[in-house]
């Protein structure tokens, strides 16, 4: 690619702005495996003691329970969001629904709505349904907040599938369901994959809802666990330990991003090729 402007000044400016964040990230990683003298910036000794929380439950409490819970939390979200979005997106894209326009604008509004403002209503509903302070309740609420986004994205992907493919399937004698399952769904697979990853990461990072909707429950997700560990008023407080837990918490997301970054890009460019 040829450029009609100099590249390095832009890189320089961007690098300067990003530097504090990048450096802190780097030290987050370095600090988890080193110790440094009090008040000093530079590490003096390599150690794995900050990672003892992985097997020593006495330190911060068991970390694997919250990890499993977080995984269940995020995976359940993925399953529900994908199921609902892949069917609802199809219906909105292709079927002659009554109130289709209303539905579409509703979805957009829901997507743009700050979830926090709904919390009181959500709290009342959960309380009424007996799901307050339960994992299921939190999952349902978080999933509900994610579905409008999912439906909208999937509608975009379905819109890109030529209608002739569908008509050809119908002419070939297949039912509408068979056509959807065997011919259309494979065309939107890239969309499903990106949406799945996106929702998983979203669920994995969720902190606010478990914190507010299940404050006194007997389960932790990693975000609330990290929050507890990083409370400086505890006797065990150790800053490098907090950093280790934090890094442990971000690792899966970094890995997902690294592997699937191209896939995640096309969720915003809105569709498949070919």
């Amino acid at each position: 690619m040829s450029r009609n402007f100099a590249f390095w000044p832009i890189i320089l400016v961007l690098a300067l702005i990003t530097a504090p964040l990048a450096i802190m990230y780097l030290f987050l990683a370095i600090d988890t495996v080193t110790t440094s003298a009090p008040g000093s910036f530079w590490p003096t000794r390599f150690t794995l003691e900050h990672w003892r929380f992985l097997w020593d439950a006495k330190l911060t409490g068991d970390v694997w329970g919250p990890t499993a819970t977080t995984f269940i939390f995020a995976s359940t979200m993925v399953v529900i969001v994908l199921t609902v979005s892949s069917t609802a997106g199809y219906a909105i894209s292709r079927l002659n629904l009554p109130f289709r326009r209303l539905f579409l604008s509703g979805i957009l509004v829901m997507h743009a709505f700050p979830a926090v403002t709904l919390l009181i209503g959500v709290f009342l509903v959960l309380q009424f349904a007996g799901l307050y302070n339960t994992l299921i309740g939190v999952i349902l609420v978080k999933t509900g907040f994610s579905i409008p986004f999912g439906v909208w994205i999937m509608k975009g992907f379905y819109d890109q599938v030529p209608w002739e493919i569908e008509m050809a399937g119908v002419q070939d004698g297949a039912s509408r369901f068979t056509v959807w399952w065997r011919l259309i769904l494979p065309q939107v697979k890239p969309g499903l994959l990106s949406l799945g990853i996106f929702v998983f990461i979203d669920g994995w990072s969720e902190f606010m809802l478990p914190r507010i909707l299940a404050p006194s429950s007997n389960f932790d997700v990693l975000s609330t666990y990290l929050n507890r560990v990083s409370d400086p008023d505890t006797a065990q407080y150790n800053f490098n330990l907090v950093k280790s837990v934090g890094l442990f918490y971000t690792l899966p997301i970094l890995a997902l991003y690294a592997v699937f970054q191209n896939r995640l890009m096309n969720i915003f460019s809105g569709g498949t090729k070919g």
Partner: protein
Amino acid sequence: MQVTLKDFTKAFDDLVVIDKMNLTVKDGEMLALLGPSGCGKSTTLFAICGIHRINGGQILFGDRDVGELPSQKRNVGVVFQNYALYPHLTVFDNIAFPLSVRGDSEQAIDRDVRAMAAMTHIEDLLHRRPSQLSGGQQQRVALARALVRKPDVLLLDEPLANLDAKLRLEMRSEIRRIQLETGITAILVTHDQVEAMSMCDRIAIMNKGEILQVATPTEMYRAPVSKFVAGFLGNPPIVMLEGRAEAGRFAIDSVSLPLPARLASTPEGTPISLGIRPEHFGREGAEAISGVVSFVEPQGRETLFDVTIAQGVVLRSIQPVRSDIALGSSVSWVLDTEHLLPFDANGQVL
């Protein structure tokens, strides 16, 4: 299988696009629905295969009324303009799809797919995906997929529109060959008169939701029922002159041209549109017309001349290549009086 449309009516919301159309396609025949864009030919096609719901009348396959049946129960094969192959499936699986939906056994599917691939000459491509095929090959796959179920009717929606000129010639004869070999009743939708004339047994020409004439290509070319039909068929197109009857002849401004003998007693002053095909000027006939060559277009085997016979009155002549006539030459060429096509003020043939 004979296909019959009886009083077929189609409306989109309140707009009636096709009102009480009647058409019969004979068993084993290939019929072209020919017309300009927006004339309702594709709408008719989609109604026959069940994509569009009909608003009135009947669609009969043989004696069976399929007008209210869903597409899946009509047993129609369709080739779409963009082929609509399934991009994620191999050629084999594309062709096998209709059979596997029907629940055929593996062996039966394998046998039928291979037989159909042999007929359409795509045996070597069965393991490829649609994106790895050329336009002509995709067309063959689409044909094979449409025919593998042995449908009652084959519908082709502008099947050659997406091909380049050379492939179009090849696929034209290929589609016809396959249609003749299978003996299937076929309906071809096209806006290209050459396609319609070269591929089909009969042509139904449509305009504004109406069928104007159904005839064999030769008949329709020779004896069009209206000005529209005459203008739609023929390349280079017919020349249409607007004038009136005067003493048994056709008069336009200062020019007087002969009319066919049967119109000798036309009342004075009757408005007439006179259609003159390029091959009926400058070849044979009784009356010579003189003028000045105002345009020469060599077409290889033939040469097309524009001859101005008076201010604003231009006749066209197509002749075997001749180099003796240059731009600006004065010529006196004969007009084939009995083959002229006169139409009345409403565009109906006289």
